[in-house]
């Protein structure tokens, strides 16, 4: 199995990471090295094996469904790269 530049471009797009056109062949080549390494998993017989979901069988603790904090709009927005009028600001989304 081999990754071409089209696939590399598609993966970069799905990951929302801009990769310049001239960098795609090198990226595809790196993918091929890593995926070639991963490929050996296919030789393992996993018939009847359930995918592992956790290391220790245990139920996650639940907490009461109540408000525990809030009213910290200023603090929440303090980390934002762009905030206006009490909201996160982003480029126009709807045409």
């Amino acid at each position: 199995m081999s990754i071409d530049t089209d696939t590399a471009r598609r993966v970069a797009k799905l990951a929302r990471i801009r990769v310049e056109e001239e960098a795609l062949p090198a990226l595809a080549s790196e993918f091929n090295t890593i995926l070639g390494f991963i490929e050996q998993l296919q030789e393992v017989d996993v018939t009847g094996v359930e995918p592992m979901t956790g290391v220790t069988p245990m139920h996650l603790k639940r907490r009461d469904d109540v408000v525990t904090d809030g009213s910290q709009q200023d603090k929440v927005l303090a980390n934002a790269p762009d905030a206006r009028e009490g909201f996160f600001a982003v480029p126009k989304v709807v045409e």
Partner: protein
Amino acid sequence: MLGKLNMDEFAMGSSNETSAYGAAVNPWKADDGVDLTPGGSSGGSAAAVAADLCLGATGTDTGGSIRQPAAFTGITGIKPTYGRCSRFGIIAFASSLDQAGPMTRDVRDAAIMLRAMSGHDPRDSTSADLPVPDFEAMLTGDIRGKVIGIPREYHVDGMPGEIETLWTRGTEMLRDAGALIRDISLPHTKYALPAYYVIAPAEASSNLARYDGVRFGHRAKLAQGDGITEMYEKTRAEGFGPEVQRRIMVGTYVLSAGFYDAYYNQARKVRALIKRDFDQVFAEGVDAILTPATPSSAFGIGAMKDADPVQMYLNDVFTVTVNLAGLPGISVPAGLDHKGLPLGLQLIGRPWEEGDLLNTAYALEQAAGFVSKPVKWW
């Protein structure tokens, strides 16, 4: 708190060289004086403890990031059982593998610090609500009758003779202390790294999706007419370093439509088999497993620059199985190589039995008598 220490970017690296701030340097030097890596990802913590800047430091370990740097710097590092310590406040890398632990000068300090770090935290729902024993009180050094497994699959191709010799010496030390040595088999060992490099990037690609330039962190400068997609793509290309980008994209690929079963689900099934290997040897009476901690001593900063990414990943060949199975593992300094650099041995314990594991490590530490320190490093 004395300060904050360097690490690989988002904990993705084995040499500290992916850090946005540049690599921490190992206080140990080879004879040629070249700067060596303290390992990674918790390399800053390891270097600080080895250089006596602090008594102990915290680290996190997703595939070996406490134990490999501990081995490279001649200190003790324990990754406890998955769920033993809260991860609240730690940026998630691979949530089913991440665990925090102490990095200290010796086993006793590790026992003291681990007790303080352990226990349930309502703010990390995976942290187990189990009693935390007084680990230090369990350090008797008496391991008579304990069964120590030596897994044959950990004799990997190309392993330096010095590592083999150290491993044999460690085995003899534990036998001399009264432990019973048993050859064991963990047949799926060779599939641990490939499974890890599916599961960890998959989880990372999901966890790091939050770095989109909206609520916190870096946002790229946008050009006229750029929309939300350009903002995401430029922000993530500028903000993430090359190794992090690589892993996010590998994770994206293995989770994408048409490949999810072939890669991600296959890796999770192999992971179940790796865990079963351990379950079986523990069920047959093995108390702990002795392995090398790393396939080499610390290498030079920049030495792996031209290697492909998989070469760097091989650093974790002995440690990564432990994360996949969720077990506790500890690296104990056990000797010096021909360059005068520290080498570590790893002990792997039963789940939730860090106390017993620390005691075996204590016996190994006593027998190895490792007292070397980096010479004038400053």
